[in-house]
């Protein structure tokens, strides 16, 4: 076995783990877009607040002293609840008054909310980066010359898969999920059929934001440095992943995110690390030229 193929497997694992984190972010974008046709720019900053919430709760209770599943679960729960509450608040205060306004206005409001969270966080949490506590011991589960499987990567996979299964259940096997899909299909028709659109929108924001919360803890574990602007780049990439898969399409978002994660890892590994951030946008522009509806999106024809 050469070291080359060993490296390849390692990069594959890293890429998948990065991709699954992107997936958690991308799902939030794609769900909100599906329901409201709004690029929720604040999503990335909700994620940032989630990271800080779990950071402070871990400091406060002293979760770092006894890492394990209990600590991880508690951090995840804090982050999810904080993000969900924040998401709902933003929807209620900033987006709902503009539901019927031109799209440009809502988009600008979203940017405003995003900036508010970023700069508010710089004042409240401080602009300097903080070290995220180790909630799970990072030891090698499998340590062979062929590949090293770290417990962190396994945690990221397992948590992501559990979250995706939960999401799948909520969206496809509950009444609320059915209403959500109906609203995403056509808001007017859904409200005519007696679906409470506002409740569905709130539900969507709760789902999307909690996923971002999960993502923030996983990122905190894997890249233990958190700061108020940490959401900007990952948010953009999550959005690109959503567009890549076909915005509004949930399985597309996961697929797009995995592609993003893998291609980013391999570009950094085999080409150049400066290309890392340019790659995402290159991909985006490419997809807009050749397949604007995304990999799994449907081409919609607008009828007058």
């Amino acid at each position, binding site marked *: 076995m050469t070291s080359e193929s060993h490296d390849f497997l390692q990069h594959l694992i890293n890429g998948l783990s990065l991709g699954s984190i992107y997936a958690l972010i991308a799902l939030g974008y794609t769900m909100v877009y599906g329901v409201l*046709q709004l*690029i929720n720019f604040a999503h990335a900053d909700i994620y940032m607040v989630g990271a800080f919430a779990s950071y402070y709760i871990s400091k406060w209770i002293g979760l770092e002293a006894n890492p394990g599943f209990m600590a991880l679960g508690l951090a995840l729960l804090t982050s999810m609840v904080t993000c969900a509450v924040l998401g709902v608040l933003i929807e209620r205060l*900033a987006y709902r*008054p*503009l539901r019927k*306004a*031109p*799209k*440009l*206005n*809502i*988009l*600008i*409001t979203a*940017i*405003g*909310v*995003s*900036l*508010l969270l970023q*700069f*508010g966080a710089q*004042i409240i949490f401080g602009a300097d980066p903080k070290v995220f506590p180790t909630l799970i011991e990072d030891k090698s589960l499998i340590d062979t010359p062929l590949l090293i499987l770290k417990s962190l990567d396994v945690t990221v996979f397992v948590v992501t898969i559990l979250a995706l299964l939960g999401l799948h259940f909520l969206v496809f096997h509950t009444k609320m999920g059915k209403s959500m899909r109906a609203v995403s299909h056509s808001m007017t028709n859904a409200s005519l059929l007696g679906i409470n659109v506002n409740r569905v929108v709130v539900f969507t924001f709760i789902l999307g934001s909690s996923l971002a919360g999960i993502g923030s803890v996983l990122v905190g574990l894997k890249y233990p440095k958190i700061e108020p602007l940490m959401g*900007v780049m990952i948010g*953009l990439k999550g*959005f*690109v992943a959503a*567009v890549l898969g076909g915005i509004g399409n949930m399985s597309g978002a996961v697929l797009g995110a995995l592609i993003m994660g893998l291609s980013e890892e391999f570009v950094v590994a085999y080409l150049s690390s*400066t290309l890392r*951030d*340019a790659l*995402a*946008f*290159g991909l*985006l*522009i490419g997809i*807009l*030229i050749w397949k*604007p509806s995304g990999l799994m999106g449907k081409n919609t024809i*607008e009828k*007058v």
Partner: protein
Amino acid sequence: MKNKLKVVLMVLASISISGLVLQFSINAYIQILILQILMYSIAAMGLNLVNGFTGQFSLGHAGFMAIGAYTSAYLSQIFPGFLESTHLLGFFIFSILGGLLAAGFGYVVGLPSLRLKGDYLAIVTLGFGEILRVFLLNIETLGAARGITGIVPYPELGFLDRFWVSFFYIMIWFVVGLYFVWRLTRGRHGRQFLSVREDEVAALSLGLNTTQIKVRSFVIASFYAGVAGSIYAHLISIVSPSVFGFMMSVNIVVMVVLGGMGSFTGSIFAAAFVTLAPELLRSLQAITGYDLRMVVFSLSLILIMIYRPTGLFGSKELPDIVRSWRMKKS
């Protein structure tokens, strides 16, 4: 023809005189602020064409400004004597080149993304701005992260100081720019832009090439941004990748939105407001001890969108507002 010449001469004369008045009446700090307002107004006017008239959303205007700024900075570095020997003409040539290069980039970026509907332009332009920044950070000939420093400033002419020359130069761009977009939007092109904004499907069914219309407005806006960037380079004398980041783009968008989408005088007014507000808010920082400027800024953005979604001027221009105000009074 004679009449037109008269108007041009009168405009030049009034620019010179107001420049003289400002040169001797106010201090350097306010002078710099005035020049910055004019520069941002040029960028905002251009963007208003895209955001206000054509109803598209660009979030990477700082990128196009960066292209203009770096063009001007780089050219004045490799041709050091050129600006001195040609006086103001050289600055015009650099600004035009910067604008053209920015417009070329605008075409390349705009064409794929403007074919599509919706918010894609916002994301692609945002991405473009970021990519450009990454490239600028890595190009050693353009100074990488340090940027280019010591760019030739506007010269002095006899008893006319640097402020007067800068003011004269920027004012010419400002007036020509305002005149051009004003005429443009009040003719056939303007109606085409508006038709795309109001209903793209209807515009398409009237046989308009909506993609071409959108690209046209975007390319013009990029040119304006390029020129504004070139002015920035000579005005501030330093360009670096970090200056032309996302915040600069957002600032220009805010000028357009705050002033009213579709109102050029509104954009100018808002450019003044956005440039001056942080300076005025400095005292707030002294009281609270925190840098609350950006928080106030973003909060006011949200509140304006919720309570006055059309911006301060709406789609009206200053003369319209004055006229209706007079009619109400009488």
